[in-house]
């Protein structure tokens, strides 16, 4: 099986290969579950190779020349579409968050026909809305040596040198325009008494370049994009399909030409056809079940595209945020983030002895407390980067010194153990130093939020925090134009892999989503659309019919299993496997074990899942079942990616690759590349895109 695929590798001739691929996928789809599972044990146990090495991959779109001029050059060289011709071209955009909503509005303004899809009841609900902290932009309004170049540098370094220089530079370059655009739309950013915009520092960088709107920056930016989007809906350039979920990509003659979507109210399986398709469907953190993502966030759109030929970049890069409200019990459905700024004044500790863990923290004397971050990292103390703070909290709880309610956790040996997952974030010192009122002025809203969720008063009792999955740096592989390896298919925002390397800096996700949506995609997609309109398609076209039928078969299969376990029980178990073995610390043994567990569980899912109701109705169980089915396949790929990357970098910590004192150790000699995975059942094909740093010098991080 390996040889013919190897022969077909490489970027050239992609469309021909895409087509062949598609046939196999369509054939496989109905019996997909059983087929891939049959293959799985053989590859992991037998040959010892879980993946196939493919050809090298390169971005061919970024022009040559100095980095400062690349974007302008690309904008000039890209083919244009005459305004009169734009209305003859249709673009499908899946997702209405910052990336999708901004792109739909901008392309609508440009005059294209846009079909915009979201699974929520309104485009305003996309999960970009939940971002709290702020948005970075190289405005240098503070006169503190900030510049495009510094934002570019910080982002690459923050990403632990695993991001593509050209994309990141462009991100920094357009960042200032984002703020202009948002202010013009009426986004009420924080202002000073002089009426000008306020800034704060964020995420450990040394300049003040973060614009914010109280603790609701994401909400305000999204509402701005949403308003622009609704303006285009009113103008008739954008047609909105809310409560529609993309379930399949339609590829015809090697080009992405549409999607299959399910109307979530009527259950109708519809094909929607266009000249290009844009995925702006966010991250896949919900593969862990518990994350700070919204309940509906899923990987289905990206994964369906991956199965149709879009490579998936760096799936194992996951950001785990250290300051979230801990799990309260087995029925927990999601986790809530608390702003990272709390670590500026709070001191993190756990009891020195496990037997103190259920005591009232105020009764534990100073000498019995372990301020472990201050102890291990005397230089940075509680302000170490996110990944380090997270990993140490996990270590403390693994040692049995966690605090808060004990939650049952299945152990590797099959037993169940009660583990407390939480550490204290104590404000007693700062309250003593500056007073309760001053603390309240700084963190009042966060304290209130904490009190509402936990019913504990953080002014009196230390907060309990624990890390939670927050963002996925990995995603669909794209080139400089944001086009995936499927011609005519684009990916923007968190859905793509492009800008954050192995770790994302605070306040950069909003920046990337809006940069892609407002300024990048609308200036690159024209290069492709200039060749259109492509031959007219009808819903009767065999490829369209095949995509619709494979979607229907899959739904029928889910509905016909009629087993005994609920969808959520599978999702929770998958999440637990992922969290345990592909979470904050990964080992070869753990990941190998996880792969076996996932495959067993996926097999059980397709044998024993219970999906109630029918397709032709509003059926939330069916929606979730489809998403979980794709999470199983993604989870496998994440483990394979994490297994193959035998280095620690950013959010990916491999226990085998650490310095003598337990810090992450990169191996630039071996792993200075993007891992772009091509779908191939249980044995994905690895394409390496080498990362070449012309402008930034590679360094190893240290925080001691």
């Amino acid at each position, binding site marked *: 099986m390996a040889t013919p695929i190897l022969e077909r590798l490489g970027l050239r001739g992609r469309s021909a290969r895409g087509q062949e691929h598609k046939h196999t996928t369509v054939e496989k789809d109905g019996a997909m579950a059983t087929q891939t599972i049959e293959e799985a044990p053989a590859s992991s146990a037998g040959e010892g190779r879980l993946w196939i090495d493919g050809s090298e991959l390169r971005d061919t779109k970024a022009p040559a020349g100095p980095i400062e001029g690349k974007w302008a050059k690309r904008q000039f060289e890209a083919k244009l579409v005459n305004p009169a011709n734009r209305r003859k071209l249709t673009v499908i955009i899946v997702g209405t968050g910052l990336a999708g909503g*901004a792109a739909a509005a*901008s392309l609508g303004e440009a005059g294209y026909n846009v079909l915009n899809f979201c699974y929520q*009841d*309104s*485009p*305003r*609900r996309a*999960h970009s*809305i*939940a971002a709290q902290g702020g948005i970075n932009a190289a*405005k240098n309004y503070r006169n503190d040596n900030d510049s495009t170049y510094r934002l570019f540098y910080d982002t690459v370094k923050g990403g632990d040198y695993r991001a593509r220089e050209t994309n990141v530079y462009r991100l920094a370059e357009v960042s200032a*325009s984002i*703020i*202009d*655009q*948002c*202010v*013009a*739309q*009426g986004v*009420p*950013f924080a*202002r000073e008494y002089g*009426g*000008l*915009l306020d800034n704060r520092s964020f995420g450990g960088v040394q300049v003040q370049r973060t614009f914010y709107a*109280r603790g*609701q920056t994401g909400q*305000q930016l999204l*509402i701005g994009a949403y*308003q*622009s989007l*609704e*303006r285009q*809906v*009113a103008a008739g350039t954008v047609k*909105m399909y*809310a409560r529609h979920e993309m379930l399949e990509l339609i590829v015809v003659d090697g080009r992405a030409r549409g999607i299959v979507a399910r109307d979530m*109210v009527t259950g109708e399986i519809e094909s929607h056809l266009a000249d290009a398709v844009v995925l702006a469907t966010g991250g896949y953190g919900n593969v862990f079940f518990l994350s*700070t993502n*919204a309940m*509906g966030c899923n990987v289905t759109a990206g994964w369906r595209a991956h199965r149709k030929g879009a490579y998936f970049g760096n799936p194992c890069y996951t950001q785990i945020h250290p300051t979230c409200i801990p799990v309260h*019990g087995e*029925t927990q*459905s*999601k986790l809530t983030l608390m702003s990272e700024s709390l670590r500026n004044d709070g001191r993190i500790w756990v009891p020195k002895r496990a037997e103190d863990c259920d005591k009232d923290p105020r009764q534990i004397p100073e000498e019995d407390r372990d301020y472990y971050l201050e102890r291990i990292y005397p230089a940075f103390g509680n302000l170490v980067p996110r990944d380090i703070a997270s990993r140490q909290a996990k270590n403390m709880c693994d040692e049995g010194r966690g605090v808060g309610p004990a939650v049952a956790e299945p152990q590797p040996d099959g037993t169940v153990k009660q583990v407390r997952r939480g550490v204290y974030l104590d404000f007693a010192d700062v309250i003593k130093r500056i007073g309760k009122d001053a603390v309240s002025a700084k963190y009042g809203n966060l304290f209130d939020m904490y009190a*509402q*969720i936990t*019913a504990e008063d953080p002014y009196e009792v230390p907060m309990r925090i624990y890390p939670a999955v927050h963002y996925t740096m990995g995603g669909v592989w794209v080139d400089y134009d944001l086009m995936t390896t499927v011609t005519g298919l684009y990916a923007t925002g968190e859905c793509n892999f492009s800008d954050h390397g192995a770790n994302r800096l605070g306040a950069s996700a909003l920046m990337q989503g809006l940069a892609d949506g*407002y*300024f990048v995609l*609308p200036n690159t997609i024209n290069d492709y659309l200039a060749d259109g309109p492509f031959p007219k398609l009808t819903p009767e076209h065999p490829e369209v019919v095949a995509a619709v039928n494979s979607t229907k078969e899959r739904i029928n299969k889910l509905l016909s299993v009629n087993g005994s376990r*609920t969808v959520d029980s599978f999702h929770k178990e998958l999440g637990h496997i992922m969290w345990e073995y592909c979470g904050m610390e990964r080992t070869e043994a753990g990941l190998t074990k996880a792969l076996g567990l996932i495959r067993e569980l996926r097999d059980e899912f397709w044998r024993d899942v*219970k999906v*109630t*109701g029918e397709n032709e*109705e*509003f059926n*939330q*169980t069916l929606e979730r079942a489809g998403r979980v089915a794709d999470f199983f396949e993604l989870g496998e790929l994440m483990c394979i990616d994490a297994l193959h990357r035998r280095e620690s970098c950013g959010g990916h910590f491999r226990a085998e690759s650490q310095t003598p004192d337990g810090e992450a150790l990169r191996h630039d000699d071996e792993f200075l590349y993007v891992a772009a995975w091509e779908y191939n059942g249980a044995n994905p094909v690895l394409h390496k895109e080498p990362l070449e740093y012309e402008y930034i010098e590679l360094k190893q991080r240290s925080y001691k």
Partner: protein
Amino acid sequence: MNITLRVWRQANANAQGAMQTYQLADVSPDMSFLEMLDLLNEKLTVEGIEPVAFDHDCREGICGMCGVVINGSAHGRGSSPVPTTTCQLHMRSFADGATIDIEPWRAGGFPVIKDLVVDRTAFDRIIQAGGYISVNTGAAQDANATPVPKVDADRAFDAATCIGCGACVAACPNGSAMLFTSAKITHLAMLPQGQPERWSRVKSMVAQHDAEGFGGCTNIGECAAVCPKGIPLDTISQLNRDLMHALFKPDGK
């Protein structure tokens, strides 16, 4: 905790609905209200009963997707000590052995889709009628070119925190969406960028509000009382002021 739930079940928009009673054991006081419903649905699924449909997404009180009437008040505000969304209401707000009534938003502008899920697309259409500033991407001047006095920016922000959940409509005895509409009017009317379209905006948004079948405002104040984001009632007066002013302006619909 053991609780008794009386939940509105309605198979689809055209079906007749009714309250159904379910017993639920092992409810933890730390659960959010929606996690309690998850627990109910897991139990129902295992028993072969179709689970209760309810809208929800972010579960951190910001997306505005969730919302049911709990014991007669929107988002269970009557049971919560602080303004809340349904997802941020916790079971500790209820006593062991309590009976909890759960109903969908009921309003002419919000037809029921299934069980506790309603169609709120009318809100999107009200925004489409003018709840925006017409600026094309790329056409913006420098962000600091126009200063905005802090008080205006803050007032705009207070109104802009609306999450579009629809609790105001659900609570209003008139089924009016004035608080929602006026929040957007106020947000944009307070900012210099919103001035050029200010008068046409208020006319067309109010016209769309009425066309959607929402009732009129009689200043009762239930809307602001249940609003999870504390949108103040005086935004409605702002809308009225702007509307009266707009009647003497030639522009707009």
